[in-house]
């Protein structure tokens, strides 16, 4: 999967506002004791398969290089060692992970803010205003959702290089904000808001800007924050593009930095795993905090498929 956002291509196509409560529904668990045992056994095996690699990543990041390559392999680091993190975070490191972390953070936050701001304004016009050319604009924007991203790879590389953005965070922040997903997503949401709200504001003498910022945006907080979270995760995890447009060690984001570590002449797994932990912790935290929104937006995407 290239991005979280593609999964939600048709998200919010149905009524988005009241959050559904998946945990309430569902069929009762099997009542026979054997069925119960099999059910929990299966869940336990799956949980181990899903969590073991992550535990291994964490454990290795606290090993010495010698301990990580010593057979038989051990789940517990002996000796317990924070050397990998110290190498990565040390000043003057050839692999400045702290710098990569900040680059990733700045790029993902800026990209997410840019997407929410420009998409909300565009979606407002497309959902609530009438003007000549509206249908044509909407259709041409939406059509591009279905174009595979790799078609834009080569021309955007040349455009970004002409703008002088190669090897800079601008290349990570700006071009992907042209994507149509957020416009579609927010337009669908805005369209569901009752017209009466606007009419009341118009009677009060509000102009469109005021209606947009005072009525529509506050009511759309769930959709706006969902788009912000999805855009942040997508940008944070983006891999192919940063690998090719960023070169200098100081300008990398975490994913492109991990590729650099993996392709280094001497592969040091504790260091690579420590880098992977640094890249994972923020997204796992965001996922745990915004779990409901992330899962809702993914699960709703299929319903209108």
């Amino acid at each position: 999967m290239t991005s979280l956002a593609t999964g939600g291509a048709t998200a919010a196509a149905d009524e988005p506002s009241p959050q559904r409560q998946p945990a309430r529904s569902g069929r009762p668990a099997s009542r026979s004791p054997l069925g119960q045992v099999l059910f929990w056994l299966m869940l336990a095996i799956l949980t181990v398969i899903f969590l073991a690699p992550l535990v291994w990543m964490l454990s290795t990041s606290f090993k010495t290089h010698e301990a990580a390559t010593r057979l038989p392999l051990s789940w517990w680091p002996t000796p317990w060692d924070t050397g990998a993190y110290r190498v990565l975070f040390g000043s003057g490191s050839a692999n400045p992970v702290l710098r990569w972390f900040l680059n990733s953070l700045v790029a993902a936050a800026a990209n997410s803010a840019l997407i929410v701001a420009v998409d909300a304004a565009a979606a407002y016009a497309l959902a609530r205003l009438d003007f000549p050319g509206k249908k044509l604009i909407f259709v041409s924007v939406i059509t591009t959702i279905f174009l595979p991203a790799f078609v834009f790879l080569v021309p955007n590389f040349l455009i970004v290089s002409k703008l002088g953005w190669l090897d800079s965070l601008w290349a990570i922040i700006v071009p992907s904000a042209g994507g149509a997903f957020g416009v579609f997503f927010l337009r669908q949401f805005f369209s569901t808001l009752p017209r009466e709200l606007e009419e009341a504001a118009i009677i009060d003498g509000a102009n469109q800007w005021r209606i947009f910022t005072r009525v529509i945006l506050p009511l759309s907080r769930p959709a706006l924050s969902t788009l912000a979270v999805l855009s942040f995760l997508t940008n944070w995890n983006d891999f192919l593009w940063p690998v090719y447009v960023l070169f200098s060690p100081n300008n990398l984001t975490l994913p492109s930095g991990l590729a650099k570590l993996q392709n280094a002449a001497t592969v040091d797994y504790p260091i690579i795993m420590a880098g992977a932990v640094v890249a994972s912790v923020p997204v796992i935290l965001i996922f745990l905090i915004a779990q409901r929104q992330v899962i809702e937006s993914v699960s709703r995407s299929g319903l209108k498929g």
Partner: protein
Amino acid sequence: MTTTSERSTLEGAPARATGRRVRRNNWATPYLFLAPYGVLFVGFILIPAIYGIWISLHDYDYLLPHQPWVGLSNYTDLFKSGSRDGADFWRSIRATAIFTVFSVPLLVTIPLGIAMLLNRRFPGRTFFRAVFFTPYVLGVAVVGVLFRFLLDPTIGLLNFYLGKIGFSGTTPWTTQVPWAWVGLVGMTVWWTLGFNAIIYLAGLQDISPELYEAAEVDGASAWDKFRNVTLPGLRPVLLFVLTLTLLASANMFGQSFLVTKGAPSNATRTAIYYISQVGLQQYRQGIAAAMSYILALILVLISLLNFRLFREKEES
């Protein structure tokens, strides 16, 4: 962030200004709302879409002082026998095809099983749902370096345990086919399974419980219920998951880039991997653009076929 700044500028706006009614009906207002996104859309979607075609008609080699017009020869070269680029390109398409053929069936079926497990009432359900989804929120970079390590022939966890239970323990997961494909497909299933499972779960919850109750009254077995209630109820969701998974598989890049680096002898170098190498590393943008359009065309054809097949099944 932006909304607060927008709001603060608004505080200063003269809300009681007499011109408000005129401003509200200003013909330019909708276009002003569209303008910021419009600039990005035109600059990074619309222009590239057309510019890409223009590039593909030129010999866009960075070594050349000029980029001469070459017509369709970037395209036709790929179909000529004996063309080096053509051979490499079709080999990369073949790699993507192999990956797709083996990963899609697993990613369409296993998540359905997991969704059915999760579609029951039991304590800790939200926890397990989160567990299965967690790998998906990690990027391909994290998953790639992690599995490069887990699949390592000598110090990888997988071979270590395989050795313990009596297998050879020296399987070359990252350097030899077919093992490399097993590794690449396996890690992709681990990574993206939760995404499909969540979509299925929502689909399952949309199936009316009365249908199951009615089937039970008729004495239907678990298998009967699955075949006659669950599957028909999931048809649109199935098509959606299948399409999405097909497209995602066709975009496969990071796994090969990090785990096998295309080894052995470019057998696992996928189409996107090769196109990005040619266009963004060797700076031969003309032919790379042509390749991406051919790949896009192949995807369009497969998607159409996919929809056609589903529709025929629905009619029969």
